[in-house]
């Protein structure tokens, strides 16, 4: 119905979200400028990421492959993008040490991008010819068919290290438990809160939530990347402050202020 067509140029119900994004952008710019001015940022050590090198080294010594799983998310999932960032660093290390890397993919688009990322990593360390075509491959876009194929591969090939980074769903425990059964060193990072307990139970190291997104900057150690983590911390401090203020105001009889945290 033409009369029902929305002709507004801005949704006022989302003004709080817009302010939040603009503030975050401001934090990002300020911290990037600080990084360029030579300010150093401290990031607490993340055991899971420190163990990545150990896992790759162990696989090289044992002569067994590393299994990298980018999760079941597609390219619209931020967890998948974070996984690709980590993969660039893992592929680089793998190329330097010369061990085998296997990346079974659930999404064909993720597979194509992972393949390009790995090729580029090999090229950067000057070992382009060592890259094995077919080491990054498509398995299935069916959740449990993917599980059956990957767990079967784990039991047959016995990879020395299993790295789970990205968005995982009900398959998380199947994969992690089977990997645990094979005795592989297991490192996981997931942005799905409901799947984290399963990884914590079955893996040696687990990156909890936001640590997955910080991983790229943590491994790369580039000042501008580290600045983005500082911006994230500022945003978190602001979120805590806003929540505390709204909580106190609600307790003192101003519940209507809770609306500033609601998005339409």
């Amino acid at each position, binding site marked *: 119905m033409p009369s029902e067509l929305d002709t507004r140029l801005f949704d006022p119900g989302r003004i709080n979200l817009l302010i939040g994004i603009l503030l975050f952008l401001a934090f990002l710019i300020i911290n990037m400028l600080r990084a360029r001015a030579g300010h150093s940022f401290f990031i607490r050590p993340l055991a899971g990421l420190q163990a990545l090198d150990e896992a790759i080294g162990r696989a090289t010594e044992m002569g067994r492959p590393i299994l990298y799983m980018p999760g079941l998310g597609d390219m619209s999932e931020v967890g998948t993008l974070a996984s690709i960032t980590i993969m660039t660093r893992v592929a680089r290390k793998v190329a330097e040490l010369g061990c085998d890397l296997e990346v079974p993919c659930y999404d064909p688009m993720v597979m194509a991008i992972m393949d390009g990322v790995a090729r580029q990593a090999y090229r950067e360390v000057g070992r382009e010819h060592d890259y094995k075509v077919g080491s990054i491959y498509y398995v299935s876009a069916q959740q449990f068919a993917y599980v059956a194929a990957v767990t079967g591969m784990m039991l047959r090939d016995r990879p020395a290290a299993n790295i789970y980074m990205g968005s995982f769903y009900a398959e998380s425990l199947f994969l992690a438990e089977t990997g645990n059964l094979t005795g592989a060193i297991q490192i996981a990072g997931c942005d799905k809160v409901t799947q984290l307990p399963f990884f914590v139970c079955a893996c040696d190291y687990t990156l909890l*939530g936001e640590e997955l997104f910080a991983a790229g900057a943590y491994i790369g150690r580039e000042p501008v*990347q580290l600045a983005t983590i500082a911006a*994230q911390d500022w945003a978190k401090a602001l979120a805590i402050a806003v929540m505390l203020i709204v909580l106190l105001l609600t307790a003192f009889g101003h519940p209507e202020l809770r609306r500033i945290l609601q998005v339409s």
Partner: protein
Amino acid sequence: MYLGPILLTFVVGATLIALYFIPHHQAQEINSELLLWATIVYAFALILGSVSLWSVHAQRIRQRISGWPFSLVTLFALLGTTFMGVAWGIGEESPLGRFYSMVNSPLASTMFALLAFFIASAAFRAFRARNVEATLLLVTAIVMMIGRVSVGEFIWRGFPGLTEWLLDVPNLAAKRAIAIGVGLGAVSTALKIILGIERGYLGRTR
């Protein structure tokens, strides 16, 4: 070399963010159109996926790599389902539809049913009282399990209330803390990609 893709990412990312805040019907039509483009790109990526699937499994069969008979089944299924879909369509009553509901769905359900056993083995490992944290987890799990079954109320009337409190207070607080961190991390990653700070998806490690 990377300017083109970075610029394209910036334009598309910034446009989609802007469209989220503009409820105008024409803006939303553009949004729907862009999402349709993503579906079309995915369809092309599926061709790449099929080629990858074929080449990887054909190589395994040729070289008789461990587990090659499974690869044979995979390729047979790939060819068979493609033929059924092309020859008789993909409706619910078509051979492909029947194959899906009578073979694929029960197989997926069987796999899913195995989850109970995996949970049991993971729980067994997690609930070993090795230190204070693990003991706390064990005690909480026992309270939760007793409190969620009807006999729990007969043992002690407070069990159901205690389980509700555990779920709604400490559990929810931890979940929300992680969820807020994930949300901020996701926004940060998205902005880094849109602004060209993070270029990992282009294959750059430096």
